[in-house]
């Protein structure tokens, strides 16, 4: 699990035209994307397809490997499948798709899965082309209270350290339980308790060190630029495309043009 965070962290630190975009613009664009995708009626599938361009174009321009993206999507698929699978069962109104007949339940099932794909891709691409530091900084500038931003920074940095400690402890626990996959309640509680105590002691040390260096609650961030015309242009293009793709079914239009 920690390797997963580390991968994304790596990607977030790279440099590319997408990485250089203002993080606030990317956050707002992703937000608009999510809202637009989710605003489609239940059974819509074809009109959703043009939306695939947004995450995939950003990913390729931002140097995010497609394999990485799809592996993550696959890993998160089971839960969406679980809930979406109910639809074909409960909704059996017959519906025609071109020359074939199917039920409304299968249409909404496909719609749910496609939405899932789009929303997960958008979130991953946002994280991979921005990096957590810049992301939380952007959220702070967009209005998130300071305590959230500062805490998120600490949380993120400590994640790796505490995570490593946890996996070390977990390994030693497994070794001591003769390879039983799931150790007993008592040993896990003891492990968690010790982990917690160490975490609290570490926090005190961190705080002391920060105060000794003049910390006053603000985390300085380097490389902050003001929003430029590129960022505004990016937002405008995204907004216009999302609106167009929402109002008209672009996939259907393309199909009609290609095969009248």
């Amino acid at each position, binding site marked *: 699990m920690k390797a997963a965070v580390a991968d*994304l962290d790596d990607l977030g630190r790279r440099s590319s035209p997408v990485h250089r975009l203002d993080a606030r613009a990317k956050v707002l664009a992703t937000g608009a994307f*999510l*809202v637009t995708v*989710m*605003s489609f009626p239940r059974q819509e599938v074809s009109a959703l397809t043009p939306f695939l361009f947004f995450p995939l174009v950003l990913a390729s321009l931002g140097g995010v490997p497609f394999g990485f993206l799809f592996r*993550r999507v696959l890993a*998160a698929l089971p*839960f*969406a499948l679980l*809930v*979406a699978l109910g*639809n074909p*069962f*409960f909704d059996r109104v017959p519906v025609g798709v071109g020359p074939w007949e199917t039920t409304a339940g299968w249409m909404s099932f496909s*719609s*749910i*899965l496609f939405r*899932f794909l789009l*929303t*997960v891709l958008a*979130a*991953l691409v946002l*994280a991979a082309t921005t990096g*957590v530091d810049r*992301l939380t900084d952007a959220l702070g500038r967009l209005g*998130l*209270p*300071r*305590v*959230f931003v*500062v*805490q998120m920074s*600490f*949380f*993120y940095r*400590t*994640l790796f*350290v*505490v*995570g490593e*400690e*946890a996996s070390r402890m*977990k390994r030693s626990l497994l070794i001591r339980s003769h390879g039983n996959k*799931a*150790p007993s*309640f008592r040993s*896990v*509680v*003891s492990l*968690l*308790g010790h*982990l*917690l*105590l160490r*975490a*609290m002691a570490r*926090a005190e040390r961190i*705080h002391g060190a*920060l105060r000794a260096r003049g910390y*006053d609650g603000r985390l300085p961030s380097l490389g902050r630029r003001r929003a430029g015309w590129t960022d505004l242009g990016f937002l405008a293009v995204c907004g216009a495309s999302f609106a167009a793709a929402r109002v008209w079914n672009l996939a259907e239009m393309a199909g009609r043009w290609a095969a009248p």
Partner: protein
Amino acid sequence: MHMADALVSPAVGGALWAATAGLFAWCGRRLKSSVEGPIVPLMGVLGAFVFASQMINFAIPGTGSSGHLGGGLLLAILLGPEAALVVLSSVLATQALFFADGGLLALGANILNLGFLPAFIAYPFLYRPLSGGRRSGARAWAAALLSAVAGLQLGALGVVLETRASGISALPFSGFLLLMLPIHFAIGLVEGLVTAAVVSFVARARPEAAAPADFSKRSVLAGLLIGALGIGGVGVWFASDRPDGLEWSIAKMVGREDLPRSEESVHQALEKVQEATSVLPDYALPSGAPHSSGVPEKAQTSLAGVAGGGLTLLLAGAAGLFLQRRRS
């Protein structure tokens, strides 16, 4: 229990995000003075702890399955509700961004279900009074169990209501509820046990580590009161005027919505009592009242909603006071 974006409509997601934003503003204000204090590194570290401990599964004896710590109640006990909410939001946000465990549009809903409910409802209204300030011992364990189960049940109910309100999944309400509640009851038991165990472990090693005691229950109550007024005053306008379940069943069987009046003297006597006491029969001004024809129907219903809510509050409050006095 993390809701994915694919199941949440923008209306529901947006509304819950608005509520979450309000909650964030509130927590931001309450914690403003502690931003440079030792609590913020502690919050970051505890967040990492909760995140990491979710990797550690343990066997639940007798069921053949495994579980892990959720962390909401534990964080509230160690940090207080506002700080706990901040920590949980970052954990949930990280899970959503990095692991697609829960959507971004649904993040507001998830923060409310998994953060607000354990930290602002289960902890101050259940754990604190029940545990009586103790961190170890049978009473603390019972308090943790009850609060964890209650918090998770409320969360599960929230998920079902939000899915239903979004209208994207076709799962029937009762079926979904019947699935979610029992599972999360079991999960709640595990959460309660682990929380109680970790808290008592820490309390013995570090007796001074305690949550700040200045959390205002009154603010949560005020918030709930405003919510109740809103629903009673305005929400009721949207109530369906179709017959309720019982009336509908009776109508199907008998042909009309209420049964014929009984000739028994007891029934008649009680009916007289009801006629005398009902100020707003059927939630509207009585038809014979002097001003009833001039008052619009919506206003009558609002009046009924607000008056009824206020009366219930008075009665419940009085009962609570009475019971408290008797106990001490």
